[in-house]
């Protein structure tokens, strides 16, 4: 099993490497419910990792702690070699990161949500331009140019002046992807980005994801129930259950020749619908 889940010593938290996202001994609980338990995971630069698993297994949580929407309880996460939740002291030990440090590291990460979360009072282009102008200090002209390029890339140049209320679900999601791309993150997180869409609108969104994958610049972590798409886009598939990686490997292995019973029963259940 070509697993990247390493059972390293839990105190070994500071190792550096080329990995784009590196989870070390990450724990996350909501009250008494443990959602992530001693998670070790390396995602390589440019790698496309698809996370599958039953409902409640912690797939969303792993993306949310990477985006800092939820904070981890223990362990470390590194993004592009920098600790996300920690700062290194001059003595070489780790201390809790300041908000400023988190913001700096977080600028490498982008996320697309299941329910789009577009800003409803702004047009598509304003949604896309906001972060470049306000966070990156890009001039409005430049941000508009970039924004229009991105909207064209997702096939929505014609809709630049429409507000989210005037767009279909599939269009909203593509605007949301363009908005996330506008900050030029090296890591993009996608949480079931097609599952709130009518079936006939899914294709356009998947096409955009394929385009991003093809460029190969962006590390992608995707949670999806679209197994066909997972097979096509993934370099590696992680089967998640109860906050742990049960099985990990290329699609041909995990989907076609699963080694674990849990994976087999999950794939069986998914295949039934």
């Amino acid at each position, binding site marked *: 099993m070509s697993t990247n889940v390493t059972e390293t010593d839990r105190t070994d938290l500071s190792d550096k490497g080329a990995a784009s996202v590196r989870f070390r001994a990450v724990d996350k609980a909501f009250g008494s419910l443990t959602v992530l338990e001693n998670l070790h995971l390396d995602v390589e630069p440019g790698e496309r990792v698809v996370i599958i698993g039953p409902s409640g297994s912690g797939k969303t949580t792993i993306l949310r702690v990477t*985006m800092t929407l939820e904070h981890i309880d223990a362990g470390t996460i590194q993004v592009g070699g920098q600790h996300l939740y920690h700062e290194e002291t001059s003595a070489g030990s780790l201390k809790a990161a300041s908000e400023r440090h988190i913001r700096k590291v977080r600028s490498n*990460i982008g996320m697309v949500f299941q329910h789009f979360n577009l800003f409803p009072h702004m047009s598509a282009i304003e949604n896309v331009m*906001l972060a470049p102008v306000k966070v990156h200090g890009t001039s409005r002209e430049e941000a508009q140019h970039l924004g229009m390029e991105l909207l064209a*890339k997702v096939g929505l140049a014609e809709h630049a002046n429409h507000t989210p209320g005037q767009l279909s679900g599939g269009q909203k999601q593509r605007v949301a992807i363009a908005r996330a791309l506008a900050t030029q993150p090296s890591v993009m997180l996608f949480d079931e980005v097609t599952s709130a869409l009518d079936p006939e609108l899914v294709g356009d969104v998947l096409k955009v994801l394929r385009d991003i994958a093809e460029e190969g610049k962006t590390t992608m972590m995707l949670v999806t129930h679209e197994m066909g798409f997972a097979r096509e886009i993934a370099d590696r598939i992680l089967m998640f259950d109860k906050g742990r990686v049960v099985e990990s490997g290329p699609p041909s292995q995990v989907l076609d020749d699963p080694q674990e019973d849990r994976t087999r029963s999950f794939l069986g259940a998914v295949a039934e619908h």
Partner: protein
Amino acid sequence: MADDNHRPEAPPTASDDARPAGTFEFEIEQSHKWYRRPEVLVPVILVVLGLSLLAVVEAPSGRFRSQFTPGRDVSFGWDYFFHLVPQMLRGLYTTARATVLGFLIAASLGLVMALLRRSERPYVSLPAAFVIEFIRSTPILVQMFFAQVLVRATPWLTLNPIVILFIVVGIHYATYASEAYRAGINSVPKGQWEASIALNLDPATKWTRIIIPQAVPNVLPTLGNYLVAAFKDVPIGDAVLSTAGVLFFANTIRADDFRPVEPYLLIGVGFLLVSLPAAWLVRRLEESIEYERD
């Protein structure tokens, strides 16, 4: 772009994909009319109202006086009633002016209070919560007496009664407004806050561009109702601080002429003339916001 039929998903047409990126001649339309943009609308309304009233800096002055010879137990007379109208309007103007100026303070201070109360730092949020609850749970009548004696007891502080009035009204209603803002802020969906984090927006951008523009429209009807309520509280100032508003007008006329029915009835009519259209405007605002939400 003028295509109104944009709701259905457009099929991926060749032009969508074939168009080379970065070659657009494109004008960003202001996506909303300015009056639909709360972050523009609210300051505009407040500033215009405030300034136009402030521009007429002087409150009308002069004693209220009737043209009739005083006499006891005179029955109701329309002549007497109508001849009081201009003076009543003068009083009503003073009352309205104090209301608007007071509310100008309330609307802006209320937002500050709401933000302080939401602060993550307990040494900010706890005192803010205490002050808000304290002011909200004491009657404005008591607060006016308190403000009056406080100003009298402070040698270096001399304030015109009308200034005391709108400061008290402002602070009192700021606490109500702050609760309305708080509810409005909490009504902004969680996804909007999360998108702000995901885009790494700084706190100032998050608040001014994302949260407040979405919270304020929900709050406007409530603020409108408080404005009408404040208008009805301001005459308390006439009784306590002797400001020259409508109630002071009626009290003066009664003391001079011993004819209380007409002036009090008249100020009732005056209130109705202001409150009814105001209530109607608030309802219109509510409806238009419902509509915006679809």
